[in-house]
């Protein structure tokens, strides 16, 4: 059965640990998820099992992607629309929490685009750690080839200290890959990740008569200790492939998986990012990969959040690639793809809501408040990209007004939203900040403050649920309370309010 999951991607959902849930919106607009992890299932599972996870296990992109966010219609008249909004809330101290949010969606229906055959290049690391998951690789290759359509092609390269082309342009239903095996790992063999990606890039060109799309699926432990090891240069190669129209999926392997480089590659903005903890997981993920269709929509996306007078850029969440340039928050992606997936039995555990976007804190200069007054712009959103089909440059801008003056706190302990119908994103951010602060403070040995966070946040979560009864926030709230219980069981500390806490106060 082909189940439509229409997600416009910076990255398409895919994970070990994601339950099947579409992010299709009633309007027919397709929300854009930030590329990278697509759930926080493992983090939640640990908490449900009574553990207190390490802070590094809470991935903000994955956490946001679990949430279903309503968005305005994608009626901007372009292939990709951007939607800015603003929330202003009291902080837990005397300050004011002023947060901008930008989400993306598209009105394009991928089913209206003709399906193109795809040449998939599977690049597989051959280190001993990787082999614990891939085994000899034959079964994985057979599964992937079996799940591709007849007009697709599959090539396979392996990489350890050296890269090798193992399979060239195999035709589904015809090629016999039962003899294809990954090279056995050598003792103390290093891993040349740059070489593996470069070999995959070479393999894309081997089918000179092939007409269709291309895709690279990288199976990696995240290790890169031979050849060119500098992460920015490895990312640069991956980015150049994405820019040239080749989506890049990354599947993490092994218990010693080092996520830093794979995550950076995944967040370039194309393809899946998932972790396979077992051979069975990996099989499921590669089959899922075969069912993914990615249609390039836009190239060279740039989103700029430019603060208005009276504000400056503070913290940024939701997009690790975002930087601050000339006083504005800037997010660039080499390409945006429109994705569909054949059904999918996603592997286990988590939720998949397709939520996410760019959060930018606006730090208000209180002294400018009286001067600037209420109802003035808080920031301008500038969007630009290339419409790939039309071959045209697209750019547009919009302003978001703050009904309060810069730094002014709402009179009640409830946020002021610029678009109240779409305020859930801000609550989602607050729940992420709560969970992150709790595991951070616990890891630093400050159990009292870790517990204090949950007591500070609980009324806000309850109030949100009273008003909206949202299933995603409900799960977040339960996770927070369970984490509190786990921390208390370990530390028996007296809850104290933490200082410098990043969240806004959403409770009356």
């Amino acid at each position, binding site marked *: 059965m082909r189940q439509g999951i229409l997600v416009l991607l910076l990255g398409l959902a895919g994970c070990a640990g994601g339950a099947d849930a579409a992010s299709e919106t009633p309007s027919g607009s397709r929300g854009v998820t930030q590329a990278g992890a697509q759930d926080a299932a493992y983090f939640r599972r640990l908490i449900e099992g009574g553990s207190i996870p390490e802070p590094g296990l809470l991935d903000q992109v994955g956490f946001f992607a679990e949430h279903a966010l309503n968005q305005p219609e994608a009626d901007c008249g372009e292939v990709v629309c951007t939607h800015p909004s603003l929330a202003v809330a009291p902080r837990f101290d005397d300050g004011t929490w002023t947060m901008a949010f930008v989400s993306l969606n598209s009105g394009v229906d991928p089913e209206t685009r003709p399906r193109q055959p795809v040449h998939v290049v599977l690049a597989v690391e051959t280190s001993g750690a990787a082999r614990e998951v891939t085994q000899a690789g034959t079964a994985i290759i057979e599964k992937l080839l079996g799940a591709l359509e007849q007009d697709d092609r599959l090539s396979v390269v392996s990489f350890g200290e050296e890269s090798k082309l193992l399979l060239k342009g195999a035709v589904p239903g015809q090629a016999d890959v039962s003899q294809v095996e990954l090279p056995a790992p050598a003792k103390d063999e290093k891993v040349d990740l740059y*070489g593996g990606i470069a070999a995959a890039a070479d393999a894309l060109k081997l089918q000179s008569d092939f007409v269709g799309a291309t895709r690279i699926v990288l199976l990696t432990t995240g290790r890169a200790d031979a050849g060119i090891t500098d992460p920015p240069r490895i990312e640069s190669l991956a980015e150049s492939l994405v820019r040239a129209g080749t989506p890049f999926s990354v599947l993490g392997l092994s218990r010693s998986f080092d996520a830093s480089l794979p995550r950076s590659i995944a967040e370039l903005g194309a393809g899946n990012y998932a972790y396979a903890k077992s051979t069975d997981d990996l099989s499921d993920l590669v089959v899922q990969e075969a069912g993914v269709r990615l249609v390039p929509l836009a190239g060279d996306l740039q989103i700029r959040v430019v603060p208005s007078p009276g504000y400056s850029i503070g913290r940024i969440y939701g997009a690790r690639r975002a930087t601050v340039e000339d006083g504005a928050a800037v997010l660039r992606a080499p390409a945006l793809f429109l994705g569909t997936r054949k059904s999918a039995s996603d592997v286990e555990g988590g939720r998949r809501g397709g939520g996410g976007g760019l959060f930018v804190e606006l730090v208000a200069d209180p002294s400018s408040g009286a001067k600037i007054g209420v109802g003035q712009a808080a920031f301008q959103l500038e969007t630009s990209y290339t419409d790939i089909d039309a071959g045209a440059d697209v750019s547009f801008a919009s302003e978001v007004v703050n009904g309060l003056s810069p730094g002014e706190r709402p009179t009640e302990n409830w946020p002021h939203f610029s678009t109240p119908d779409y305020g859930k994103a801000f609550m989602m951010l607050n729940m992420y900040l709560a969970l992150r602060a709790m595991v951070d403070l616990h890891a630093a040995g400050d159990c009292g403050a870790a517990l204090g966070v949950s007591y500070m946040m609980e009324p806000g979560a309850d109030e949100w649920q009273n008003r909206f009864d949202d299933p995603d926030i409900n799960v977040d709230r339960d996770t927070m309370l369970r984490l509190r219980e786990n921390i208390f069981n370990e530390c028996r500390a007296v809850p104290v309010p933490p200082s410098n806490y990043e969240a806004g106060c959403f409770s009356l």
Partner: protein
Amino acid sequence: MLGEESKIAARRRSEVATGGSSLTGKSWCRALATLGPHFGVLLVALSVGCPGYHYTSRAYFANTTKEPVNVRVQTLQADVDCASMDGRSAELLARRELFGAAITYEVEPGQAVPLDLDDPWHSQRRNSCAALVQILGFADQVVYWPSATGYVTTETALAEGSDPRFLGQSLRLEGYGNVKGLAVGHALEVTALPPQASGAPPADTAPATLGWSGAPRTGLGFMLFRREILPDGCLSLELGKDLDSRWVLFLCVPEWAFPFEVDTKLNITSDQILPEPRGYYSDPGDPPAQHLLVQAADAGARFELWLNAQAAELPAVGKVTSLGPPGRHTECGAYAEPVSVELPALSATLLPGEEAKQVVKGKTTRVLLGRADQLLIAPDACAPDFASLGTRFDLLMLDTPEVTP
């Protein structure tokens, strides 16, 4: 978590046993006391019977209020050329990624905590000159003690409020109730960090990127079977003695630098040179220089590429001169300042990214200096090129003989 704390306790014990310079006396007792809240009653009971102890340190945190305070201290997780940081710590060290795991201390009223807690496992090679101090209610503070700062020894675990040297070398929490502030000793440089997750500018990139991936063979008469350009501009080369023994080399150089055409026979040498030991020991983190030499078998063009080289390794190189700031911050948190490289035979001194060209008796020599860095901050988390201090450069040299008609 518990494992890590146990390790910390063990380190403190080790330091006492080996006479470590930063903590003296029965400091392990303090460590045990610190760990008490995590281990429960047992360790607290152990620490109750500890005799008095004192500290020797170049920088302190002191709690001069009437209430206990929780303080988190993170030590440097990077090799730092401390002498170069004087007066520049705010610019160069005010980055969270340079600091490692936090230890939380509950500091009683009047007590002090020494901040230059070298990890004893690294104390042979790592200078400690900064710590990240987190105090509830305040912005995180990077505390830097300049290289000339002397040690101050306390009589007890208490702050030495009447000792001007102690006051000059301490970050002190002062005040009462809700009115508290931080006082900074004149000998220290203290910088407040922006909040976590604050937007940051993009990392700087090197002016020219040279390098290779793949495992180049050494030998004579390799045929160049394929030569293509990868999407990032690097070259993808396929070489071998015959079709059945082909191997690939991904070479990141400008296109002009590798003039060999497909079906050319090449002689190739690839080797590594271990770095000269620095001081009494060789730092295992120092990357070896890598050398790749490719020459047409007919004695035609000669391509030579050095990565992570030091002046002593290249006869063609004369003086390597540090150019000072401005430098660049890499994505992994390293900080490097540029160096110039003198090439006496070409009568040229190159800056990073610069080229030189010379024609002598029909032979053209063209040289490109790639990355040329003096690493002043080298975080453990960086790739080997940036994970140790020192001056290293990448150099490409191409000799092209005169083409006779």
